């Protein structure tokens, strides 16, 4: 049996890699992929704790997180497509109309 702590550490590493991706990349799609990585790290934490405490609530939550992440991916990519049609670039530094 693998200790729960190892899964939590793996999840923390993946989450930190996702945070790094969001903070450093300029390509909007890559930032979006780093966000999906963070969501998956959180899913792993939920499942590790669900197995630890023998409860199904963790699994049900992961189920809902997957469904909502799918919806978010669809709408987010639609936003990127319309951004691309207006500005011909997906660089998030160029989408700065609302910056001061």
């Amino acid at each position, binding site marked *: 049996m693998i200790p*729960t702590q190892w899964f939590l550490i793996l999840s923390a590493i993946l989450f930190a890699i996702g945070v*790094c991706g969001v903070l450093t990349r300029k390509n909007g799609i890559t930032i979006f992929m780093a966000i999906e990585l963070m969501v998956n790290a959180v899913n792993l934490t939920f499942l590790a704790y669900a197995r630890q405490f023998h409860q199904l609530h963790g699994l049900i939550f992961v189920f809902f997180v997957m469904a909502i992440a*799918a919806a978010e991916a669809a709408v987010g*990519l639609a936003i990127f497509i319309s951004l691309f049609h207006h500005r011909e670039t997906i660089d998030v530094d160029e989408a700065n109309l609302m910056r001061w």
Partner: protein
Amino acid sequence: MIEYAVFFFFAAIAVIFALVVILHRNPVVGALSLVASFFALAVMYVLLDAPFLAALQVIVYAGAIMVLFLFVIMLLNLQKQAEEPTRPVQQFVGYAGSAAFGIALVYYLSKYVVLELPASPFVADARTVGVALFESYIFPFEMVSILLLAAIVGALVLSGRGVQTS
């Protein structure tokens, strides 16, 4: 013994391909590496006694969401966007900050969170998940289906094909 080997191998795969996602220039290679990372995570879910969710992870994430990502990247021809680093200070702060965050998180997890192993194996097959979904979690289930409908309509409207006036 075999479990530990499988865990380390697939954990290494997940971490390495996650690093490729955030470090490689080309978003198509990044998307395919993310698929590999999701697949490794699905194996992790099997190790956590949740094979149903492992299959769902591959079907939903690796099989549908990432295909959508690849479509958008390929149709908009995004791999030709060259990324020149125009903000080196912010990038350095980003790398340093996330590295510090990761190291601190791993350190405190390994030092303070010690959970003893569960006593008996945990059964999380389709029947128990289905019963829980339709009994205790029926309201969130229905709300998520309405949310998915809203997402479909929103995506159609945003892409400009929502209303067909003929």
